[in-house]
């Protein structure tokens, strides 16, 4: 039996190596997406069984005889021992955001290979390790947050900087996801109607849950899903109606303003009315669609149309400028390593783990699942014809303002496409045009529709395209409204030191003022993205990627400090190696985004080019200011994280020399009395 088991693991490992090798080495023909699925799945299974368990057993010395905070501090609210599969689902739903869907789609401009390899390798050796070690550290410290652990393990500076970094990342994140929605819905009556319809649906759900059927969340969400599904179907008729279509045909600027107003209302209104019901609905839709996509890929097994590498590895990409190193890694971001996950791993999850060994599937396994979602997004992007992919994702400022000009530019790159093909495709999905739909969401929706519609042909392509757009916009807007609210709380907390009434959550002037301040912050960057002649994604997505990866460097610094205190230098490489890589990638990318002499990459060069052009109009002055502002934001983030790194390095040297406090601040061992039937 033992021999059989070993043979099975050898077979899985060999399959992983063969599939990865096949994906990496096959050239000159279209490869089937199933190669990517198998390469990723076999690598994850092998890594989970051997690397994950090695870290759990040798490095963390997980011990099921030790009572977890969920058992010791059990209160029926935050601290509650929970079945590991339920908690795995809960944790995965919490970490799965738009990043792993959008990032790989944008990174596909380099071809399928660079992004795929980084998604798999980065998750196994970096992202999953970060999530797992932070979850373990928080679980051993009574469920403490990343900020508190940074303060305790590194110093007060680290904790404060972690808070400021989170606030800044949130502003950039909300702006960039807002821009993704704007670009998906501009000039699209079908899409705009569908998303507009989710507002009254959410309000209905809010009142249903609060007054008519209190507590029946699943029942209410099922009704909400039927209504949203009906609105996707109804959108086709709205788009075809001469009277209704103009009402829902919005420009990018109008949509941006609409989203800003929505963000403000969702932050200021009672949470049960709009935010919570949308959140319930979007969580279920998100999980359902991810599952559907996995099943769809397995059944359809589409061939990848994009090549392994495109000519844009040289840094001249139309979607975002910059070479594979470092911009592929920055763009993929959450699909491989996400700093934000460390907030979830040190938030609700460590307070609900029943047994220490459950941290392996929950901490390490969940990130592998998220990485698999990123692989599916990569497949969805790569099943499109390359010409179509670039026509959808390239901004007019790069490829030309008319469909004919854009088609000619893209065809000259070696990716044939015609304006007529694009017009037919737009007609098939119920849109007026698919050119210049930057941001990743429309091309992801097209790829998903292509996979889902295998059995129904072009007759159902439009429905699936808009269903995918609805799914993306629904959960992006949920992040936007929840993020605005969280930002408001953080700001109220910070401002309360200067003006105590501002800290009161029930004082309406304070609520309105701080909501407006948060909305204005991300709204400014959103409008900046809409006005950007290069489409906005070129500047905002790398900024988001850099800030997210910088948060991961803070988390990995905390993790390395903890491992050094536990074992000295012996196992510190587990977190130090991904940390060193991320520091190299993020600081190189940050430096290039600020100082590159190429205007398409460097913010300052972009500002100088605009200034040298001599146009003195207010619009040009605003563009110059925005480029310099982006450079400043990037610089501040890098400086903040450099301080944390320097502070961490000081502590590490002290620990290794024996001059610094190497005391491990874990809660004392208490034997577990939890019975199997309780979980």
């Amino acid at each position, binding site marked *: 039996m033992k021999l059989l088991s070993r043979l099975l693991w050898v077979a899985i490992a060999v399959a992983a190596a063969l599939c990865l090798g096949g994906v990496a080495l096959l050239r000159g023909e279209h490869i089937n997406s199933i190669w990517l699925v198998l390469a990723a799945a076999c690598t994850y299974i092998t890594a989970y069984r051997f690397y994950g368990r090695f870290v759990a057993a040798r490095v963390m010395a997980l011990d099921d005889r030790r009572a977890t905070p969920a058992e010791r501090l059990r*209160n*029926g*609210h*935050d601290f*509650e021992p*929970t*079945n590991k*599969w*339920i*908690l795995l*689902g*809960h944790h995965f*739903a*919490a*970490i*799965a*955001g*738009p*990043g792993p869907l959008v990032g790989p789609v944008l990174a596909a401009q380099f071809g399928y290979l660079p992004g795929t390899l980084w998604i798999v390798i980065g998750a196994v050796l970096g992202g999953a390790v970060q999530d797992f070690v932070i979850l373990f550290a928080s679980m051993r410290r009574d469920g403490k947050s990343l900020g508190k652990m940074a303060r305790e393990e590194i110093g007060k500076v680290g904790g404060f900087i972690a808070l400021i970094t*989170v606030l800044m*990342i*949130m502003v950039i*994140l909300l702006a960039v*996801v807002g821009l993704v929605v704007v670009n998906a819905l501009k000039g699209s009556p079908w899409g705009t109607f569908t998303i507009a319809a989710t507002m009254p649906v959410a309000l209905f759900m809010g009142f249903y*849950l*609060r*007054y008519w059927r*209190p*507590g029946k*969340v*699943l029942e209410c*969400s099922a009704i909400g899903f039927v209504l949203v599904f009906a609105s996707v179907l109804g959108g086709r008729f709205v788009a075809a109606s001469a009277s209704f279509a103009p009402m829902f045909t919005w420009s990018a600027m109008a949509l941006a303003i609409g989203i800003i107003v929505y963000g403000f209302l969702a932050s200021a209104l009672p*949470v*049960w009315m709009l*935010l*919570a019901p949308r959140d*319930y609905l979007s*969580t*279920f839709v998100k*999980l359902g669609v991810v599952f559907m996509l996995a099943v769809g890929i397995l059944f359809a097994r589409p061939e990848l149309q994009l090549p392994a590498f495109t000519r844009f590895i040289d840094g001249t990409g139309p979607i975002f400028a910059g070479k594979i190193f470092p911009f592929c890694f920055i763009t993929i971001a*959450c699909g491989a390593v*996400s700093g*934000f*996950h460390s*907030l*979830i791993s040190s*938030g*609700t999850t460590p307070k609900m783990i029943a047994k220490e060994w459950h941290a392996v599937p929950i901490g390490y396994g969940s990130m592998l699942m998220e990485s698999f979602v990123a692989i599916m997004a990569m497949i969805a992007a790569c099943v499109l014809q390359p010409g179509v992919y670039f026509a959808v994702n390239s901004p007019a400022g790069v490829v030309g303002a008319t469909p004919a000009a854009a088609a000619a530019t893209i065809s000259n790159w070696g990716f044939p496409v015609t304006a007529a093909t694009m017009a037919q495709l737009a007609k098939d999905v119920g849109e007026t045009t698919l050119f210049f739909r930057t941001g990743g969401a429309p091309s992801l929706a097209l790829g998903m529709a292509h996979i889902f519609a295998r059995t129904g042909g072009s007759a159902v392509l439009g429905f699936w395209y808009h269903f995918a757009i609805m799914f993306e916009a629904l959960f992006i807007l*949920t*992040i936007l409204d*929840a*993020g605005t*609210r*969280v930002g408001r*709380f953080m700001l109220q907390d910070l401002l309360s030191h200067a003006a105590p009434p501002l800290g009161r*959550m029930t004082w309406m002037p304070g609520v309105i003022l701080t909501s407006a301040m948060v909305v204005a912050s991300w709204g400014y960057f959103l409008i900046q993205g809409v006005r950007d002649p290069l489409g906005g994604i070129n500047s905002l997505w790398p900024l*988001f990627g850099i800030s*997210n990866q910088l948060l991961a460097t803070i988390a990995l610094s905390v993790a390395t400090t903890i491992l050094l205190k536990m074992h000295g230098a012996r196992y510190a490489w587990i977190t130090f190696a991904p940390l060193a890589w991320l520091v190299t990638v993020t600081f190189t990318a940050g430096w290039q985004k600020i100082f590159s002499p190429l205007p398409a990459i460097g913010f300052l060069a972009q500002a100088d080019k605009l200034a040298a052009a001599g146009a003195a109009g207010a619009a040009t002055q605003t563009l110059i200011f925005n480029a310099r502002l982006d450079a400043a934001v990037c610089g501040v983030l890098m400086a903040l994280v450099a301080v944390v790194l320097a502070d961490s390095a000081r502590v590490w040297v002290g620990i290794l020399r024996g001059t610094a406090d190497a005391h491990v601040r874990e809660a004392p061992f208490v034997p577990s009395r939890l019975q199997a039937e309780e979980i």
Partner: protein
Amino acid sequence: MTSLRRLGRIVLAILRELADENAYRRHLAVQGREHSGAEWRRFSEERLRAKYARAKCC
């Protein structure tokens, strides 16, 4: 068949956890109270206040 039933139970339990229905049951058990509209509103307000004070993942 037993495995499928078990899988179904787990999926339903995950959905209930995500829907806060499990948390509500725990709340009723801990507080020793019966379900009512007022009780759900009390629980929901406290739960949602804590839930939306935390950053959502990207």
